[in-house]
């Protein structure tokens, strides 16, 4: 499986082409702000977890 590592890349200030690091990567992590998601969270039913009844599983 071909892999790259976005988290590692984000932390590296300088590229290190001589060092081959294994493992997966993901796109560069960005933090554009949370306004949209916080607005959505406000719309969540406060009783949702109370209504969420499950049976015991394994």
């Amino acid at each position, binding site marked *: 499986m071909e892999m790259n590592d976005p988290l590692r890349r984000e932390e590296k200030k300088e590229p290190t082409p001589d060092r081959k690091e294994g493992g*997966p990567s*993901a796109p560069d992590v960005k933090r554009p702000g949370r306004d949209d998601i916080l607005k959505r969270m406000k719309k969540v039913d406060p009783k949702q977890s109370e209504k969420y009844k499950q049976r015991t*599983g394994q």
Partner: protein
Amino acid sequence: MNDVVPLLGIETEYGIIREDQADSDPVEESMRLLARCEAKSVFKAWAYNRERTHQDMRGFQVSRLAQDEEEDEFCEEDRKRPYSYWEMKSDRVLTNGARFYNDHTHPEYSTPECRTVFDLVAHDLAGEVIVGDCVRIRNQELGGDYLQLFKNNTDYSGHSYGTHDNYLIPRKLPFDTWVQQLVPFLVTRQLYAGAGKVGAERKNEDGFVGLQLAQRSDFIDSVLSIETMTERPIINTRDEPHASQDYRRLHLILGDANMSPYATALKVGTTRLVLTLIGAQKIETPFELADPVADVQRVSRDTTGTVLLKLKSGKTVTPLEIQEWYLEQALKHTGLSDQTEEWDWVTREWGRTLNDHRQNPEKLADRIDWAIKQSLFNDFMEAEGLKWDNPILQSLDLEYHNLNPERGLYYSLRNQGDVAGLIEQNKIDDAVHRPPQDTRARIRGQAVDQQRDRIKNIHWTGIEFTNGEYLDLSGLITKEEVGQVLNSNKEQFAWK
């Protein structure tokens, strides 16, 4: 060199609810969900007669399990329903080698056997895609988004359902050795493997309020047990290798369902690595916890990783110190595995995560589920002037795990690039249809793809065809063994 731990797998039970009904019937809903699965599959042909759930690793057989009682009750109710047991279980085996069925009223996706951690994470994510597709199709049928599924482990009212990680390990080493060396690691791996939970259930004499590391920790009652629905253990003792008697299948039921693929990879990767060290007899842990069961809860309720755990010697140790010791041993013993790329990734990220936890825990908020929740919920509480005891926090916690792409909070963070994705989308899409190419799952998946009308019954360990032929997969563990079968007997199994 053969790996000490040659195969890996994850089983995930999903939570399920109809939001338009006051009394949602999980049996009915789970069955209808499975009925809407459009993935190519062998349906209702699981070979239950090949299950061996009552044999204990400690060398005895139990006569009854709590799950038997539940199954009996299930069957009793079954008689009142217009469905057969087989219809309600709705087993499907897919072309990627996975099993998708109803287990104790929860839709369960069991990945195919994988050889690498990264393949396993891709298949775990493929499970989310497959289950999510079924939800979408079922909701189209219902005419609205009434059915919701959650990749989590609790209903916040004392009912838990599992995410089990499985490792094939050699039988030659005594089971007690595995237990002794592994328990301190398992008690503390929730530092990065915990999915986070708002509040506490069952064992909450101290009135805990806030975010704990793991969803499952409140439900761990023993060190060793064959049970999975009561007296849940740190290490499950069911002796059912789904392979030859040269192996055991270590069946761990104390873990959480991770939304973060990075956390899944670190959980399974570190566990495999520690098992490799134990199997190679390279470590002897200095930690003998005085009360490991209580410590599971103690560790979970301290997000700093510095709570003091008592050893039998009378000394104390912190969860971070235990994890750092295991990492140190791994760094001393490189070269024990064929999976060098994986070993390097795991040791590197394990070290980075433990270091961040100790030095800058806020840095974990891009990849570790409990820390992602902590960051997100803190922002919400600050914006709304709320505290952890507000009921909406548990609802938000639940919504983090929602498989609905329009609602799931983890999916929202992922889509806006706020958390690490780890596995490329094309790898996940591939895993939806295609089995791992280097395990016996490849043979199972190809049989489903090309011979499904000829399959009489199917199991992890083999396939029985309608003409009486039986293809035994139980001895195909290594990549070479799988390749040998694929390259021989072509006349007998031309479809391979």
